C-alpha cells in the first residue's frame, strides 16, 4: 500500500513521456504534472507520518525500509520539491522568453525533475547500503541533466565537473561498502549491507578495518555533501544551474550525503573506532567552515555566495556530528530542516533577481528594493536567517552545536566563532552592497513576477518564522524519536 503510493507517480512520468512538445500549453501541462507528482509525495509522507506504525519494511531481503529518520528527510525533500515545482512554472516561462532554455528541452527538464524526486525518496527509504549507493549515483546523473538543460556552454562544464568529482569519489565509497560486506561475512557468516542489521551487529566488526571502510565511504558521501576538499564541483554547479535547480541541489541533494554520513556514524557509534572517526569528522568540519568562510568574503555572484554558505553549513553539521552527543545530534537534524528551507528561499529570491537584471552579479543590480520588493525581502530575510540570528530556526541549532563544541575544546570554539563571524560579515556586506545601489535611469520594462513564483517565497518565509519562533511540539517529538532510534 505504502509502496504503491510512492510508486504511483511513475504514471505521471509516463504521461510526460507520451506528450508531444508541439501542443499548445505544453509547458503548463508538464508543470501541472510535476506539481501533482510532488503533491502526491508530500501527501503520502504526511499520511505515513500520521497513521502508520513505523518502522515498516518491505520484501524478504528488507531492501526498502521506512523509519522516522528516512521519513523526516523525505518530508523535507517533498516540501522543497513541491515549492520548487510551483516556482518552476513562472521561472521556466521567464527563461523561455529570454531564450535561455529551448522549448524542446522542457520535456528533458521536467522528466529529470520528477525522476530526481522519485530517486531521492527511494534513496532515503532504502535500507541497503549498496542500493543507497546506486540511487545516489542516479541523483548525480539526474541533477547533472537538470544543469545542462540551459543553453550555455559553461553549464556543460559545470555539470561535467560535478559528475566527475562525485562519481570518482563514489567509487571509493564502493570499496568501503565491499569491505563492510566482507567484514560482516567474516563476523556473521552471511554478509549484510542493511542499515538495520549493521547497527545491531556493529560491535562484532573489527575496529581497524571498520575505520578504513568508514573513511572510504566517507570520501564519496562527503563529495555528495560538499565537504572540503571534495567540494570543488559545488560552487560552479550551484551558480550555473537554473535557480530552481540550485535550490534543489542545496536543500535536498546535499542532505543525501549528510544523511548517509549520519547513518554510518550511528553504526560507528557502537564500535571502539568512534574516537578516531569523531576527531576526523571535527577536523574535516572545521576545515570546511574555514575554506567556505574565506571564499565567501569577496564574492560578487549572489548564487556563488549562497553556494559557499551551503558548504559552510555542511561543515558545521559535520562538526556537530563529530561531537556525537544526543543533544547535538538533535540540533544537527533540526539544522538540516532549517538550512533546507532558508536555502530554497535564498535561491528562489535570487532567481527573481536574475530574471529582472539578467545577471547574478551584485553590481548589475540597481534599485533592487523598489523594483523587486518581495525578492529583496526574501533575500534579506534569508540572509539574516542563514547566519543564525534569533527568531530564525538556525539560531538554536547553531547555538547548541557551538555550546557543545565549547565543552569539547575552547580554542576550537573560538576559531569556529571567528570563522562564523567572517561568514556573517560577508553576507552582510553583500546585502548592503546589493540593496544600496541606486540608479537614476529606471529600466523601461519591469519584470512582473507571477503569483506562482511569489507564493513559494511567502510560504517559505512563513514556515521559517513559524519554526523559528514556535518550534512545534510534533517536530520536537519526531527529532527526539530519530535520535533515540539511531541509538544515541
Amino acid at each position, binding site marked *: 500500500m505504502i509502496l504503491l503510493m510512492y510508486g504511483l507517480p511513475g504514471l505521471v512520468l509516463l504521461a510526460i*513521456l507520451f506528450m508531444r512538445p508541439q501542443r499548445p500549453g505544453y509547458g503548463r501541462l508538464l508543470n501541472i504534472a510535476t506539481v501533482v507528482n510532488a503533491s502526491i509525495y508530500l501527501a503520502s509522507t504526511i499520511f505515513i507520518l500520521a497513521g502508520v506504525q513505523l518502522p515498516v519494511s518491505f520484501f524478504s531481503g528488507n531492501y526498502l525500509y521506512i523509519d522516522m529518520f528516512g521519513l523526516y528527510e523525505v518530508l523535507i525533500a517533498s516540501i522543497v520539491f513541491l515549492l520548487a515545482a510551483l516556482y518552476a512554472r513562472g521561472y521556466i516561462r521567464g527563461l523561455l522568453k529570454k531564450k535561455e532554455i529551448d522549448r524542446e528541452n522542457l520535456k528533458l527538464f521536467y522528466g529529470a525533475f520528477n525522476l530526481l524526486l522519485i530517486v531521492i525518496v527511494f534513496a532515503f527509504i532504502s535500507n541497503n547500503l549498496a542500493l543507497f549507493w546506486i540511487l545516489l549515483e542516479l541523483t548525480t546523473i539526474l541533477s547533472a541533466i537538470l544543469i545542462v538543460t540551459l543553453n550555455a556552454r559553461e553549464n556543460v562544464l559545470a555539470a561535467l565537473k560535478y559528475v566527475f568529482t562525485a562519481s570518482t569519489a563514489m567509487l571509493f565509497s564502493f570499496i568501503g561498502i565491499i569491505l563492510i560486506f566482507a567484514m560482516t561475512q567474516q563476523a556473521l557468516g552471511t554478509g549484510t549491507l542493511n542499515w538495520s542489521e549493521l547497527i545491531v551487529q556493529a560491535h562484532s566488526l573489527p575496529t581497524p578495518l571498520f575505520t578504513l571502510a568508514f573513511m572510504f565511504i566517507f570520501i564519496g558521501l562527503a563529495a555528495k555533501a560538499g565537504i572540503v576538499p571534495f567540494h570543488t564541483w559545488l560552487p560552479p554547479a550551484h551558480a550555473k544551474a537554473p535557480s530552481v535547480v540550485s535550490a534543489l541541489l542545496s536543500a535536498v541533494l546535499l542532505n543525501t550525503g549528510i544523511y548517509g554520513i549520519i547513518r554510518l556514524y550511528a553504526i560507528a557509534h557502537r564500535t571502539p573506532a568512534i574516537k578516531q572517526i569523531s576527531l576526523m569528522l571535527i577536523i574535516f568540519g572545521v576545515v570546511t567552515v574555514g575554506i567556505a568562510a574565506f571564499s565567501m568574503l569577496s564574492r560578487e555572484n549572489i548564487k556563488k555566495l549562497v553556494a559557499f554558505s551551503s558548504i559552510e553549513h555542511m561543515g558545521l553539521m559535520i562538526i556537530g556530528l563529530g561531537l556525537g552527543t544526543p543533544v547535538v545530534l538533535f540540533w544537527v537534524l533540526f539544522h538540516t530542516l532549517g538550512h533546507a528551507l532558508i536555502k530554497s528561499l535564498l535561491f528562489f529570491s535570487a532567481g527573481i533577481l536574475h530574471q529582472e537584471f539578467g545577471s547574478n552579479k551584485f553590481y548589475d543590480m540597481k534599485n533592487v528594493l523598489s523594483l523587486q520588493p518581495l525578492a529583496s525581502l526574501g533575500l534579506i530575510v534569508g540572509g539574516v536567517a542563514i547566519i543564525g540570528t534569533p527568531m530564525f530556526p538556525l539560531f538554536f541549532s547553531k547555538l547548541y552545536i557551538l555550546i557543545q563544541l565549547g565543552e569539547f575544546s575552547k580554542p576550537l570554539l573560538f576559531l569556529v566563532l571567528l570563522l562564523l563571524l567572517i561568514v556573517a560579515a560577508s553576507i552582510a556586506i553583500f546585502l548592503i552592497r546589493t540593496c544600496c545601489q541606486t540608479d537614476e535611469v529606471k529600466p523601461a520594462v519591469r519584470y512582473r513576477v507571477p503569483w506562482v513564483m511569489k507564493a513559494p517565497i511567502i510560504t517559505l518565509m512563513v514556515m521559517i518564522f513559524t519554526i523559528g519562533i514556535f518550534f512545534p511540539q510534533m517536530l520536537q517529538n519526531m527529532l527526539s524519536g530519530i535520535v533515540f532510534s539511531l541509538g544515541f
Partner: protein
Amino acid sequence: MISVQYELTRILFVLVLCSAALLITQRSLTSLFSIYAVQSLLLSFVALLLFWKTGVYALLFIAGLTILTKVVVIPYVLRKVQKDIYTKRDLEFSYLSPVSSILISTALIFVVYKSFAHFRFGLSQDNVFFMGAVIGVSLLFIGMLIIFSRKQMITKIIGYLTMENGVLLFSLFIAELPFIIEVLIILDLIILILLSAILAFGIDSTSTMKEFHRKLDPFSLWFKKQQK
C-alpha cells in the same frame, strides 16, 4: 595451496598492471580504447578462473557481462564519440610527465600493499585474494592519476573507467556481493559512461548547444525507459 587457477590468476595480475602502465603513457586515443578493452578482457578471464575454482555461477555471469559491456559496448561508444570530435591523440599532460606518472603509480602500489598488509587478519587469508585486493585498489588510484594528469575529457573518461575496473577486481576477490547488486551496478555504470561521453562531446567539439541538446534528448528517453 598452489593450484593451476591461482598461478594463471597471478599471470593475469601482471598483465593487468602492464595494461595500466600502458594506459598512463599512451598518447593515441584509439590505442587507449584498445588497451582498455584488453584490460577488461583480462578482468573477465580472472572472473572465469575464479568460477573454475569456486563454481559460483554469479562469477560466470559477471565475466559475461564484463565482456559484453566493457570489451564491446563501451569501447565502441568511445570510438564513436572520438570520431565526432575529430581528435586522434591526447598529447597534453597537465601536471605529470608519463615517466613520473609511472614512477608514482609504482610507489602507489607499494603503499597500498603496505597499508593493506595491516588489515590482512580481517579479510580472507589467501595470498591470491590479498594480491587481488591490492591490485584492485592500486588500479583505482592509477585511474585517478590518469584523470589528474590528462587534459582531454575523453582521456579522463578512460581514467574513470580504469578506476571502475579496479573496483570490479577488488569486489571479485573480497566478497561475493548479492547477485542483483552486481547487475544494477554495471547498468548504472554504463549509463554514467554514456552520459559522460555525450557531455564530453558537448565540450570538445565545436558544435552548437542546440546540436548538443538534440544528442542528449533521445538518450535521456532511453535512460528513462531503463528506469521503469
